């Protein structure tokens, strides 16, 4: 099945800083999603982005399907952005998750 790798595994920022999270996948995809898992364990949908670029407020994402990677950009980070960010990709019916990036934003 498809392999999904995320980097970096951990990231510590000061409030106001920008960051880029990366997701590499091993096969062509028909679904790619970014999630934020909050401290209560809920997976919050950030982007559904099998290709192209999308923006939502301070967050944006780009997927380059031909090169098998996706990037999540967080600008002007806030303490509430802390948590684990997951990339998940599918080349069939099931989403395969990466191991996540643990983001800590300090005040």
């Amino acid at each position: 099945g498809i392999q999904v790798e995320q980097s970096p595994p951990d990231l510590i920022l000061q409030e106001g800083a920008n960051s880029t999270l990366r997701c590499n996948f091993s096969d062509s995809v028909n679904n790619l999603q970014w999630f934020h898992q909050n401290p209560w364990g809920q997976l919050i949908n950030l982007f559904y982005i099998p290709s192209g670029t999308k923006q939502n407020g301070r967050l944006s994402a780009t997927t380059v399907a031909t090169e098998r990677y996706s990037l999540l950009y967080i600008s002007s980070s806030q303490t509430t952005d802390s948590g684990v960010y997951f990339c998940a990709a599918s080349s069939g019916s099931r989403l395969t998750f990466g191991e996540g990036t643990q983001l800590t934003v300090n005040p």
Partner: protein
Amino acid sequence: GAGVSQSPRYKVAKRGQDVALRCDPISGHVSLFWYQQALGQGPEFLTYFQNEAQLDKSGLPSDRFFAERPEGSVSTLKIQRTQQEDSAVYLCASSRGMNTEAFFGQGTRLTVV
């Protein structure tokens, strides 16, 4: 409903007990998925339904795990004779169809003691 709803939110089971976890998907969503998330790891696929048909159960870790969705809406994940290694968060997701955006419930945290 407005989102995917799972119950119970927390379950403590004694080793050897059977448990049943419930998932109410978003109304009208055809596809339903179950995932297992161990502490500090990403969710791992267990099984997939399209309407009432279980199309993929390759992720179920043993024959103690059983899932059903008899009327193509609510789904139940049953774990028989629970063991300590079954302790995890069980997540349910639904989507309109294959390869469309999936939405997750809050999860059920199972602790086997």
